[in-house]
Protein backbone atom coordinates (compact mmCIF):
# COMPACT_ATOMS: atom_id res chain seq x y z
CA UNK A 1 0.00 0.00 0.00
CA UNK A 2 1.38 3.40 -0.98
CA UNK A 3 1.50 5.81 1.97
CA UNK A 4 1.38 9.51 1.09
CA UNK A 5 1.87 12.53 3.34
CA UNK A 6 -1.20 14.71 4.04
CA UNK A 7 0.38 17.61 2.15
CA UNK A 8 0.97 15.41 -0.91
CA UNK A 9 -2.64 14.20 -0.77
CA UNK A 10 -3.93 17.78 -0.53
CA UNK A 11 -1.79 18.77 -3.51
CA UNK A 12 -3.05 15.73 -5.48
CA UNK A 13 -6.68 16.55 -4.60
CA UNK A 14 -6.12 20.17 -5.58
CA UNK A 15 -4.50 19.06 -8.84
CA UNK A 16 -7.49 16.87 -9.71
CA UNK A 17 -9.90 19.67 -8.80
CA UNK A 18 -8.00 22.18 -10.96
CA UNK A 19 -7.91 19.62 -13.79
CA UNK A 20 -11.67 19.21 -13.60
CA UNK A 21 -12.12 22.98 -13.61
CA UNK A 22 -9.93 23.30 -16.70
CA UNK A 23 -11.87 20.53 -18.44
CA UNK A 24 -15.15 22.25 -17.62
CA UNK A 25 -13.90 25.59 -18.83
CA UNK A 26 -12.81 24.06 -22.13
CA UNK A 27 -16.01 22.13 -22.77
CA UNK A 28 -18.75 24.41 -21.48
CA UNK A 29 -20.93 26.74 -23.50
CA UNK A 30 -21.17 30.24 -22.02
CA UNK A 31 -24.94 29.73 -21.56
CA UNK A 32 -24.31 26.70 -19.34
CA UNK A 33 -22.15 28.35 -16.74
CA UNK A 34 -24.27 27.62 -13.69
CA UNK A 35 -22.88 24.12 -13.14
CA UNK A 36 -19.23 25.12 -13.52
CA UNK A 37 -19.97 28.09 -11.26
CA UNK A 38 -21.44 25.74 -8.66
CA UNK A 39 -18.35 23.54 -8.88
CA UNK A 40 -15.98 26.50 -8.82
CA UNK A 41 -17.54 27.72 -5.58
CA UNK A 42 -17.05 24.23 -4.18
CA UNK A 43 -13.52 23.86 -5.54
CA UNK A 44 -11.66 25.26 -2.49
CA UNK A 45 -13.62 22.90 -0.26
CA UNK A 46 -12.95 19.71 -2.24
CA UNK A 47 -9.41 19.05 -0.93
CA UNK A 48 -10.84 19.10 2.62
CA UNK A 49 -13.79 16.89 1.69
CA UNK A 50 -11.31 14.34 0.39
CA UNK A 51 -10.34 13.61 4.01
CA UNK A 52 -13.89 13.08 5.33
Amino acid at each position, binding site marked *: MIRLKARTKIMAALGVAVGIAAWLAATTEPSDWRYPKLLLTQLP*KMPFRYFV
Partner: protein
Amino acid sequence: MPDYDVVVIGGGIGGLTTAALCQKAGMKTLVVEQADRIGGCCSTFVTPEGFHFDVGASVVEVTRSLEELFKRLGLSREDYVPLVPVDPIYDYCDNTRGVRFAYPTSVEETAKVIAEFSPEDARAFLKFAEDYAPKIRELVDNFFYAPSLGFLDTLRLIVKYPGMLTVLPMFVTTHQKIVARYFKHQDVLASMAFQSFYAGLPPDMCAGLYAVVGLLEHDGIYYPKKGGMITIPAGIKQAFEDLGGETRMGARAVRVMVENRRAVGVELWDGTEITAGNVVGAINAKKLYMDMIGREHIPWHVWRGVESLVLSMPCPMIYLGVDYEPPLRAHHTLTLTDPRAMNDYWSNYYLKGKLYEKDGRIEVMGLVSWASRVDPTLAPPGKHVLTHMGLAPYNLAGNDWDRFKERYIDLAIETIERYIIPDLADHVVYRDMATPKDLERMLLHPGGAVYGIQTDLSHMAVFRPANRSKCIRNLYLAGASTHPGGGVPAVVAGGIITGELVVKDNG
Protein backbone atom coordinates in the same frame (compact mmCIF):
# COMPACT_ATOMS: atom_id res chain seq x y z
CA MET B 1 -13.64 -7.55 25.78
CA PRO B 2 -16.22 -5.33 24.02
CA ASP B 3 -19.95 -6.14 24.25
CA TYR B 4 -20.19 -6.51 20.45
CA ASP B 5 -17.85 -6.83 17.50
CA VAL B 6 -19.95 -4.29 15.59
CA VAL B 7 -22.58 -1.80 16.67
CA VAL B 8 -24.56 -0.08 13.92
CA ILE B 9 -26.24 3.26 14.60
CA GLY B 10 -29.44 3.47 12.54
CA GLY B 11 -31.83 0.80 11.30
CA GLY B 12 -32.25 2.15 7.78
CA ILE B 13 -31.54 -0.05 4.77
CA GLY B 14 -27.86 0.98 4.68
CA GLY B 15 -27.23 0.13 8.32
CA LEU B 16 -29.19 -3.14 8.16
CA THR B 17 -27.31 -4.20 5.01
CA THR B 18 -23.93 -3.61 6.68
CA ALA B 19 -25.12 -5.34 9.86
CA ALA B 20 -26.33 -8.42 7.99
CA LEU B 21 -23.01 -8.81 6.15
CA CYS B 22 -21.01 -8.43 9.39
CA GLN B 23 -23.22 -10.97 11.16
CA LYS B 24 -22.89 -13.35 8.22
CA ALA B 25 -19.09 -13.12 8.62
CA GLY B 26 -19.45 -14.29 12.22
CA MET B 27 -19.14 -10.88 13.89
CA LYS B 28 -21.48 -10.32 16.84
CA THR B 29 -23.53 -7.37 15.61
CA LEU B 30 -26.06 -5.03 17.19
CA VAL B 31 -28.24 -2.45 15.42
CA VAL B 32 -29.56 0.44 17.53
CA GLU B 33 -32.50 2.34 16.03
CA GLN B 34 -33.90 5.47 17.67
CA ALA B 35 -37.43 5.05 16.30
CA ASP B 36 -39.95 2.30 16.94
CA ARG B 37 -40.06 1.59 13.22
CA ILE B 38 -37.20 0.44 11.01
CA GLY B 39 -36.22 1.69 7.57
CA GLY B 40 -35.83 5.45 8.06
CA CYS B 41 -36.93 6.95 4.75
CA CYS B 42 -37.61 3.55 3.22
CA SER B 43 -40.45 2.65 5.54
CA THR B 44 -44.24 2.56 5.91
CA PHE B 45 -46.51 3.79 8.70
CA VAL B 46 -50.14 2.91 9.47
CA THR B 47 -52.80 5.43 10.49
CA PRO B 48 -55.61 4.59 12.95
CA GLU B 49 -57.97 4.69 9.90
CA GLY B 50 -56.05 1.78 8.34
CA PHE B 51 -54.11 3.66 5.64
CA HIS B 52 -50.51 2.51 5.06
CA PHE B 53 -48.27 5.27 3.75
CA ASP B 54 -44.69 5.01 2.57
CA VAL B 55 -42.59 7.51 4.52
CA GLY B 56 -40.39 8.58 1.59
CA ALA B 57 -39.03 6.06 -0.92
CA SER B 58 -41.81 4.82 -3.19
CA VAL B 59 -40.18 2.35 -5.60
CA VAL B 60 -36.98 0.39 -6.27
CA GLU B 61 -35.39 1.29 -9.61
CA VAL B 62 -32.55 -1.22 -9.65
CA THR B 63 -32.90 -4.53 -7.81
CA ARG B 64 -29.33 -5.63 -8.52
CA SER B 65 -28.03 -4.31 -5.16
CA LEU B 66 -30.71 -6.23 -3.23
CA GLU B 67 -29.91 -9.36 -5.25
CA GLU B 68 -26.19 -8.87 -4.50
CA LEU B 69 -26.88 -8.49 -0.79
CA PHE B 70 -28.96 -11.65 -0.47
CA LYS B 71 -26.52 -13.58 -2.67
CA ARG B 72 -23.71 -12.63 -0.29
CA LEU B 73 -25.88 -13.66 2.67
CA GLY B 74 -26.52 -17.02 1.01
CA LEU B 75 -30.25 -16.36 1.13
CA SER B 76 -33.00 -15.85 -1.42
CA ARG B 77 -34.07 -12.23 -1.96
CA GLU B 78 -37.50 -13.44 -3.06
CA ASP B 79 -38.03 -15.21 0.29
CA TYR B 80 -37.27 -12.08 2.31
CA VAL B 81 -38.22 -9.19 0.01
CA PRO B 82 -40.85 -10.24 -2.55
CA LEU B 83 -41.15 -7.58 -5.25
CA VAL B 84 -43.46 -7.13 -8.21
CA PRO B 85 -42.69 -5.16 -11.39
CA VAL B 86 -44.43 -1.82 -11.90
CA ASP B 87 -45.41 -0.93 -15.47
CA PRO B 88 -45.74 1.73 -16.88
CA ILE B 89 -42.79 3.42 -15.26
CA TYR B 90 -44.32 6.89 -15.20
CA ASP B 91 -47.39 8.71 -16.38
CA TYR B 92 -46.86 12.32 -17.40
CA CYS B 93 -49.91 14.49 -17.07
CA ASP B 94 -50.77 18.12 -17.65
CA ASN B 95 -54.55 18.56 -17.85
CA THR B 96 -54.13 22.32 -18.36
CA ARG B 97 -52.77 21.58 -21.86
CA GLY B 98 -54.45 18.23 -22.46
CA VAL B 99 -51.10 16.41 -22.50
CA ARG B 100 -50.82 12.89 -21.12
CA PHE B 101 -48.50 10.03 -21.98
CA ALA B 102 -47.01 7.12 -20.08
CA TYR B 103 -43.60 5.50 -20.52
CA PRO B 104 -43.73 1.69 -20.48
CA THR B 105 -40.80 -0.43 -19.30
CA SER B 106 -39.89 -1.49 -22.84
CA VAL B 107 -37.55 0.96 -24.61
CA GLU B 108 -39.15 0.18 -27.98
CA GLU B 109 -42.66 0.75 -26.60
CA THR B 110 -41.54 4.03 -25.02
CA ALA B 111 -40.21 5.14 -28.41
CA LYS B 112 -43.65 4.35 -29.90
CA VAL B 113 -45.32 6.52 -27.23
CA ILE B 114 -42.99 9.43 -28.05
CA ALA B 115 -43.49 8.86 -31.81
CA GLU B 116 -47.18 9.73 -31.40
CA PHE B 117 -46.29 13.38 -30.86
CA SER B 118 -42.64 13.63 -31.95
CA PRO B 119 -41.24 11.04 -34.40
CA GLU B 120 -37.88 12.84 -34.38
CA ASP B 121 -37.58 12.51 -30.61
CA ALA B 122 -38.70 8.86 -30.76
CA ARG B 123 -35.71 8.07 -32.99
CA ALA B 124 -33.53 10.14 -30.65
CA PHE B 125 -34.79 8.13 -27.67
CA LEU B 126 -33.69 4.86 -29.27
CA LYS B 127 -30.28 6.40 -30.01
CA PHE B 128 -30.11 7.80 -26.46
CA ALA B 129 -30.80 4.32 -25.04
CA GLU B 130 -28.27 2.73 -27.40
CA ASP B 131 -25.57 5.27 -26.46
CA TYR B 132 -26.09 5.40 -22.73
CA ALA B 133 -27.76 2.20 -21.43
CA PRO B 134 -24.51 0.15 -21.62
CA LYS B 135 -22.58 2.99 -19.95
CA ILE B 136 -24.99 3.40 -17.06
CA ARG B 137 -25.06 -0.38 -16.53
CA GLU B 138 -21.25 -0.34 -16.48
CA LEU B 139 -21.42 2.35 -13.82
CA VAL B 140 -23.98 0.58 -11.65
CA ASP B 141 -22.29 -2.80 -11.97
CA ASN B 142 -18.86 -1.50 -10.96
CA PHE B 143 -18.77 1.96 -9.36
CA PHE B 144 -21.72 1.15 -7.08
CA TYR B 145 -19.94 -1.77 -5.40
CA ALA B 146 -16.38 -0.44 -5.24
CA PRO B 147 -15.11 1.58 -2.28
CA SER B 148 -14.09 5.12 -3.10
CA LEU B 149 -11.78 5.88 -0.22
CA GLY B 150 -9.13 7.66 -2.29
CA PHE B 151 -7.78 8.32 -5.76
CA LEU B 152 -6.05 4.94 -5.76
CA ASP B 153 -9.47 3.25 -5.54
CA THR B 154 -10.63 5.28 -8.55
CA LEU B 155 -7.48 4.27 -10.43
CA ARG B 156 -7.94 0.60 -9.50
CA LEU B 157 -11.54 0.71 -10.69
CA ILE B 158 -10.54 2.17 -14.05
CA VAL B 159 -7.70 -0.34 -14.51
CA LYS B 160 -10.07 -3.21 -13.65
CA TYR B 161 -12.97 -1.89 -15.72
CA PRO B 162 -11.58 0.34 -18.50
CA GLY B 163 -15.16 0.86 -19.71
CA MET B 164 -15.56 3.19 -16.71
CA LEU B 165 -13.58 5.81 -18.65
CA THR B 166 -16.55 6.22 -20.98
CA VAL B 167 -18.69 7.02 -17.94
CA LEU B 168 -16.49 9.77 -16.48
CA PRO B 169 -17.68 12.58 -18.81
CA MET B 170 -21.19 12.06 -17.40
CA PHE B 171 -19.94 13.38 -14.06
CA VAL B 172 -18.64 16.68 -15.44
CA THR B 173 -21.29 17.52 -17.98
CA THR B 174 -24.82 18.51 -16.97
CA HIS B 175 -28.17 16.77 -17.14
CA GLN B 176 -29.47 19.55 -19.37
CA LYS B 177 -26.60 19.29 -21.86
CA ILE B 178 -26.99 15.54 -22.34
CA VAL B 179 -30.77 15.67 -22.75
CA ALA B 180 -30.70 18.69 -25.08
CA ARG B 181 -28.20 16.88 -27.30
CA TYR B 182 -30.89 14.31 -28.16
CA PHE B 183 -34.36 15.78 -27.67
CA LYS B 184 -36.19 18.79 -29.10
CA HIS B 185 -39.87 18.45 -28.17
CA GLN B 186 -40.70 20.42 -25.04
CA ASP B 187 -42.79 17.64 -23.47
CA VAL B 188 -40.05 15.07 -23.99
CA LEU B 189 -37.50 17.46 -22.48
CA ALA B 190 -39.87 17.98 -19.56
CA SER B 191 -40.43 14.26 -19.09
CA MET B 192 -36.66 13.76 -18.87
CA ALA B 193 -35.98 16.77 -16.63
CA PHE B 194 -37.53 15.30 -13.49
CA GLN B 195 -34.60 12.86 -13.08
CA SER B 196 -32.56 15.78 -11.75
CA PHE B 197 -35.21 15.92 -9.02
CA TYR B 198 -33.55 12.84 -7.50
CA ALA B 199 -30.26 14.70 -7.21
CA GLY B 200 -32.06 17.67 -5.70
CA LEU B 201 -30.58 20.03 -8.30
CA PRO B 202 -32.05 21.71 -11.39
CA PRO B 203 -31.19 20.19 -14.80
CA ASP B 204 -28.58 22.84 -15.64
CA MET B 205 -26.71 22.26 -12.37
CA CYS B 206 -27.14 18.51 -12.02
CA ALA B 207 -24.47 15.99 -13.06
CA GLY B 208 -25.17 14.44 -16.48
CA LEU B 209 -25.20 11.06 -14.82
CA TYR B 210 -28.76 11.70 -13.67
CA ALA B 211 -29.96 12.26 -17.23
CA VAL B 212 -29.19 8.65 -18.03
CA VAL B 213 -30.14 7.04 -14.72
CA GLY B 214 -33.72 6.97 -16.04
CA LEU B 215 -32.66 4.42 -18.64
CA LEU B 216 -32.11 1.90 -15.86
CA GLU B 217 -35.80 2.11 -15.11
CA HIS B 218 -36.39 0.50 -18.49
CA ASP B 219 -34.76 -2.62 -17.04
CA GLY B 220 -37.77 -2.67 -14.69
CA ILE B 221 -38.91 -0.87 -11.55
CA TYR B 222 -40.32 -2.75 -8.59
CA TYR B 223 -42.53 -2.37 -5.53
CA PRO B 224 -42.99 -4.77 -2.60
CA LYS B 225 -45.69 -7.33 -3.24
CA LYS B 226 -47.35 -6.67 0.10
CA GLY B 227 -46.93 -4.27 2.99
CA GLY B 228 -45.37 -1.21 1.37
CA MET B 229 -41.74 -0.10 1.25
CA ILE B 230 -41.07 -1.17 4.86
CA THR B 231 -41.03 -4.72 3.47
CA ILE B 232 -37.50 -4.03 2.18
CA PRO B 233 -35.83 -3.09 5.51
CA ALA B 234 -38.04 -5.63 7.30
CA GLY B 235 -36.74 -8.37 4.98
CA ILE B 236 -33.11 -7.35 5.52
CA LYS B 237 -33.69 -7.14 9.28
CA GLN B 238 -35.27 -10.59 9.27
CA ALA B 239 -32.27 -11.98 7.37
CA PHE B 240 -29.92 -10.26 9.85
CA GLU B 241 -31.78 -11.71 12.83
CA ASP B 242 -32.02 -15.17 11.23
CA LEU B 243 -28.23 -15.05 11.05
CA GLY B 244 -28.14 -14.30 14.79
CA GLY B 245 -28.00 -10.48 14.78
CA GLU B 246 -29.65 -8.31 17.42
CA THR B 247 -31.75 -5.17 16.94
CA ARG B 248 -32.75 -2.69 19.65
CA MET B 249 -35.63 -0.39 18.77
CA GLY B 250 -36.25 2.92 20.55
CA ALA B 251 -32.54 3.04 21.38
CA ARG B 252 -31.23 6.43 20.39
CA ALA B 253 -27.46 6.74 20.19
CA VAL B 254 -26.26 10.18 21.27
CA ARG B 255 -22.48 9.76 21.21
CA VAL B 256 -19.83 7.66 19.55
CA MET B 257 -17.28 6.82 22.23
CA VAL B 258 -13.81 7.61 20.92
CA GLU B 259 -10.48 6.86 22.62
CA ASN B 260 -7.19 7.86 21.00
CA ARG B 261 -8.94 8.41 17.68
CA ARG B 262 -10.44 4.94 17.76
CA ALA B 263 -14.21 4.26 17.96
CA VAL B 264 -14.87 1.99 20.94
CA GLY B 265 -18.65 2.04 21.27
CA VAL B 266 -21.77 4.16 21.53
CA GLU B 267 -23.65 5.87 24.33
CA LEU B 268 -27.45 5.76 24.24
CA TRP B 269 -29.80 8.58 25.28
CA ASP B 270 -30.42 6.92 28.69
CA GLY B 271 -26.71 6.84 29.49
CA THR B 272 -26.21 3.16 28.59
CA GLU B 273 -22.75 2.59 27.14
CA ILE B 274 -22.31 -0.21 24.61
CA THR B 275 -18.74 -1.12 23.81
CA ALA B 276 -17.85 -2.48 20.39
CA GLY B 277 -14.80 -3.32 18.32
CA ASN B 278 -16.26 -1.39 15.38
CA VAL B 279 -18.89 1.32 15.08
CA VAL B 280 -20.94 1.91 11.93
CA GLY B 281 -22.71 5.26 11.68
CA ALA B 282 -25.62 4.64 9.32
CA ILE B 283 -26.94 8.16 9.79
CA ASN B 284 -26.18 11.46 8.08
CA ALA B 285 -22.38 11.85 8.02
CA LYS B 286 -22.52 15.49 9.01
CA LYS B 287 -24.62 14.69 12.06
CA LEU B 288 -22.36 11.74 12.94
CA TYR B 289 -19.14 13.77 12.90
CA MET B 290 -20.43 17.07 14.26
CA ASP B 291 -23.01 16.00 16.86
CA MET B 292 -21.99 12.48 17.89
CA ILE B 293 -18.20 12.59 17.73
CA GLY B 294 -17.27 16.23 18.16
CA ARG B 295 -14.47 18.54 17.22
CA GLU B 296 -12.07 17.35 19.92
CA HIS B 297 -11.61 14.02 18.11
CA ILE B 298 -11.38 15.33 14.56
CA PRO B 299 -8.33 16.98 12.91
CA TRP B 300 -8.95 20.55 11.75
CA HIS B 301 -8.74 19.82 8.03
CA VAL B 302 -11.30 16.97 8.30
CA TRP B 303 -13.60 19.16 10.40
CA ARG B 304 -13.39 21.83 7.73
CA GLY B 305 -14.38 19.24 5.14
CA VAL B 306 -17.34 18.07 7.24
CA GLU B 307 -18.51 21.64 7.80
CA SER B 308 -18.38 22.30 4.06
CA LEU B 309 -20.72 19.45 3.10
CA VAL B 310 -23.94 20.79 1.56
CA LEU B 311 -27.12 18.97 2.54
CA SER B 312 -29.41 17.71 -0.21
CA MET B 313 -32.70 19.43 -0.96
CA PRO B 314 -35.50 18.46 1.46
CA CYS B 315 -38.42 16.49 0.04
CA PRO B 316 -41.61 17.23 1.99
CA MET B 317 -44.08 14.32 1.84
CA ILE B 318 -47.88 14.58 1.70
CA TYR B 319 -50.01 11.57 2.63
CA LEU B 320 -53.57 11.40 1.28
CA GLY B 321 -56.23 8.73 1.84
CA VAL B 322 -59.02 8.86 -0.78
CA ASP B 323 -62.45 7.23 -0.83
CA TYR B 324 -62.36 6.07 -4.48
CA GLU B 325 -60.06 4.63 -7.12
CA PRO B 326 -58.18 7.70 -8.35
CA PRO B 327 -58.17 8.28 -12.13
CA LEU B 328 -54.46 7.51 -12.49
CA ARG B 329 -52.73 5.12 -14.88
CA ALA B 330 -49.45 4.38 -13.16
CA HIS B 331 -47.71 3.91 -9.84
CA HIS B 332 -45.96 7.25 -10.41
CA THR B 333 -47.54 10.29 -12.02
CA LEU B 334 -45.62 13.47 -12.69
CA THR B 335 -46.75 16.93 -13.45
CA LEU B 336 -44.74 17.88 -16.50
CA THR B 337 -41.60 19.48 -15.22
CA ASP B 338 -40.44 22.15 -17.60
CA PRO B 339 -36.64 22.24 -17.31
CA ARG B 340 -36.66 26.04 -17.59
CA ALA B 341 -39.09 26.23 -14.66
CA MET B 342 -36.91 23.87 -12.63
CA ASN B 343 -33.80 25.99 -13.34
CA ASP B 344 -35.73 29.12 -12.45
CA TYR B 345 -37.09 27.51 -9.28
CA TRP B 346 -33.62 26.86 -7.91
CA SER B 347 -32.24 30.38 -8.13
CA ASN B 348 -35.33 32.53 -7.80
CA TYR B 349 -37.31 30.54 -5.25
CA TYR B 350 -35.55 27.66 -3.47
CA LEU B 351 -32.39 29.56 -2.52
CA LYS B 352 -34.57 32.44 -1.31
CA GLY B 353 -36.73 30.18 0.88
CA LYS B 354 -39.77 30.54 -1.38
CA LEU B 355 -42.16 28.10 -3.03
CA TYR B 356 -42.49 28.10 -6.82
CA GLU B 357 -45.03 30.48 -8.31
CA LYS B 358 -46.59 30.35 -11.77
CA ASP B 359 -49.13 32.86 -13.05
CA GLY B 360 -49.33 34.37 -9.55
CA ARG B 361 -50.19 31.04 -7.91
CA ILE B 362 -47.99 28.84 -5.74
CA GLU B 363 -47.41 25.49 -7.43
CA VAL B 364 -46.07 22.47 -5.58
CA MET B 365 -43.85 20.51 -7.99
CA GLY B 366 -43.63 16.83 -7.34
CA LEU B 367 -44.35 13.21 -7.91
CA VAL B 368 -47.61 11.43 -7.00
CA SER B 369 -47.30 7.76 -5.97
CA TRP B 370 -50.27 5.43 -5.95
CA ALA B 371 -49.03 2.50 -3.87
CA SER B 372 -52.42 0.82 -3.39
CA ARG B 373 -52.56 0.23 -7.15
CA VAL B 374 -49.93 -2.48 -6.65
CA ASP B 375 -51.05 -3.55 -3.18
CA PRO B 376 -54.73 -2.84 -2.42
CA THR B 377 -54.27 -3.99 1.21
CA LEU B 378 -52.46 -0.70 1.90
CA ALA B 379 -55.87 1.00 2.24
CA PRO B 380 -59.23 -0.03 3.73
CA PRO B 381 -61.63 -1.66 1.20
CA GLY B 382 -62.78 0.80 -1.50
CA LYS B 383 -60.15 3.35 -0.51
CA HIS B 384 -56.67 4.17 -1.79
CA VAL B 385 -53.45 5.81 -0.64
CA LEU B 386 -51.60 8.55 -2.50
CA THR B 387 -48.33 10.18 -1.52
CA HIS B 388 -46.87 13.35 -2.97
CA MET B 389 -43.13 13.92 -2.85
CA GLY B 390 -42.19 17.53 -3.44
CA LEU B 391 -39.18 19.80 -3.32
CA ALA B 392 -39.14 22.73 -0.93
CA PRO B 393 -36.69 24.76 1.13
CA TYR B 394 -36.00 23.88 4.77
CA ASN B 395 -36.27 27.49 5.87
CA LEU B 396 -39.36 29.23 4.56
CA ALA B 397 -38.94 32.96 4.10
CA GLY B 398 -41.28 34.74 6.51
CA ASN B 399 -42.97 31.52 7.62
CA ASP B 400 -42.48 28.34 9.58
CA TRP B 401 -43.24 24.79 8.45
CA ASP B 402 -45.20 23.95 11.60
CA ARG B 403 -47.55 26.86 10.92
CA PHE B 404 -47.54 26.49 7.15
CA LYS B 405 -48.12 22.72 7.01
CA GLU B 406 -51.92 22.69 6.44
CA ARG B 407 -51.68 25.46 3.86
CA TYR B 408 -48.95 23.52 2.00
CA ILE B 409 -51.20 20.44 1.85
CA ASP B 410 -54.00 22.65 0.42
CA LEU B 411 -51.60 24.06 -2.19
CA ALA B 412 -50.38 20.59 -3.16
CA ILE B 413 -53.96 19.31 -3.54
CA GLU B 414 -54.82 22.37 -5.66
CA THR B 415 -51.77 21.73 -7.87
CA ILE B 416 -52.61 18.04 -8.27
CA GLU B 417 -56.24 18.99 -9.10
CA ARG B 418 -55.09 21.46 -11.74
CA TYR B 419 -52.70 19.08 -13.51
CA ILE B 420 -53.67 15.48 -12.71
CA ILE B 421 -56.81 14.65 -10.68
CA PRO B 422 -59.54 17.31 -11.14
CA ASP B 423 -61.81 16.29 -8.24
CA LEU B 424 -59.19 15.19 -5.71
CA ALA B 425 -60.25 17.48 -2.84
CA ASP B 426 -63.77 15.98 -2.84
CA HIS B 427 -62.35 12.50 -2.19
CA VAL B 428 -59.70 13.15 0.43
CA VAL B 429 -60.71 11.43 3.68
CA TYR B 430 -57.28 11.48 5.32
CA ARG B 431 -54.48 14.04 4.99
CA ASP B 432 -51.18 14.56 6.69
CA MET B 433 -47.68 15.58 5.80
CA ALA B 434 -44.06 15.27 6.86
CA THR B 435 -42.50 18.71 6.51
CA PRO B 436 -38.71 19.04 6.23
CA LYS B 437 -38.72 19.82 9.97
CA ASP B 438 -40.81 16.70 10.69
CA LEU B 439 -38.37 14.59 8.67
CA GLU B 440 -35.53 16.09 10.68
CA ARG B 441 -37.30 15.33 13.96
CA MET B 442 -38.54 11.86 13.00
CA LEU B 443 -35.58 10.53 11.05
CA LEU B 444 -32.80 12.74 12.45
CA HIS B 445 -31.90 13.90 8.94
CA PRO B 446 -30.41 17.37 9.40
CA GLY B 447 -32.30 19.90 7.29
CA GLY B 448 -34.84 17.19 6.36
CA ALA B 449 -32.35 16.11 3.68
CA VAL B 450 -33.56 12.61 2.81
CA TYR B 451 -30.86 12.19 0.14
CA GLY B 452 -28.19 13.12 2.69
CA ILE B 453 -25.57 15.20 0.98
CA GLN B 454 -26.05 17.14 -2.26
CA THR B 455 -25.11 15.08 -5.32
CA ASP B 456 -22.83 17.18 -7.48
CA LEU B 457 -19.30 16.34 -8.59
CA SER B 458 -17.82 18.08 -5.55
CA HIS B 459 -19.74 15.69 -3.27
CA MET B 460 -19.30 12.45 -5.24
CA ALA B 461 -16.93 9.46 -5.00
CA VAL B 462 -13.74 10.48 -3.16
CA PHE B 463 -15.30 13.82 -2.21
CA ARG B 464 -18.29 12.20 -0.50
CA PRO B 465 -17.90 11.04 3.14
CA ALA B 466 -16.02 7.74 2.93
CA ASN B 467 -17.46 4.36 3.94
CA ARG B 468 -14.44 3.92 6.22
CA SER B 469 -13.62 6.95 8.33
CA LYS B 470 -10.33 8.56 7.40
CA CYS B 471 -9.77 10.12 10.81
CA ILE B 472 -11.28 7.72 13.40
CA ARG B 473 -10.10 4.10 13.37
CA ASN B 474 -12.76 1.37 13.52
CA LEU B 475 -15.44 3.86 12.49
CA TYR B 476 -17.42 3.18 9.32
CA LEU B 477 -20.26 4.98 7.55
CA ALA B 478 -23.32 3.79 5.66
CA GLY B 479 -26.48 5.45 4.33
CA ALA B 480 -27.37 8.09 1.77
CA SER B 481 -24.69 10.59 2.77
CA THR B 482 -21.82 8.22 2.03
CA HIS B 483 -20.59 6.68 -1.24
CA PRO B 484 -22.27 5.96 -3.67
CA GLY B 485 -25.24 8.13 -2.60
CA GLY B 486 -28.97 8.32 -1.96
CA GLY B 487 -31.90 6.23 -3.20
CA VAL B 488 -32.70 2.61 -2.28
CA PRO B 489 -30.31 0.84 -4.71
CA ALA B 490 -27.37 3.15 -3.93
CA VAL B 491 -27.88 2.96 -0.17
CA VAL B 492 -27.99 -0.85 -0.25
CA ALA B 493 -24.88 -0.86 -2.48
CA GLY B 494 -23.15 1.48 -0.02
CA GLY B 495 -24.14 -0.83 2.83
CA ILE B 496 -22.51 -3.72 0.96
CA ILE B 497 -19.28 -1.72 0.49
CA THR B 498 -19.21 -0.80 4.18
CA GLY B 499 -20.02 -4.33 5.35
CA GLU B 500 -17.21 -5.74 3.23
CA LEU B 501 -14.75 -3.16 4.55
CA VAL B 502 -15.60 -4.00 8.17
CA VAL B 503 -15.25 -7.73 7.52
CA LYS B 504 -12.00 -7.33 5.56
CA ASP B 505 -10.42 -4.99 8.12
CA ASN B 506 -11.21 -7.45 10.91
CA GLY B 507 -9.63 -10.37 9.13
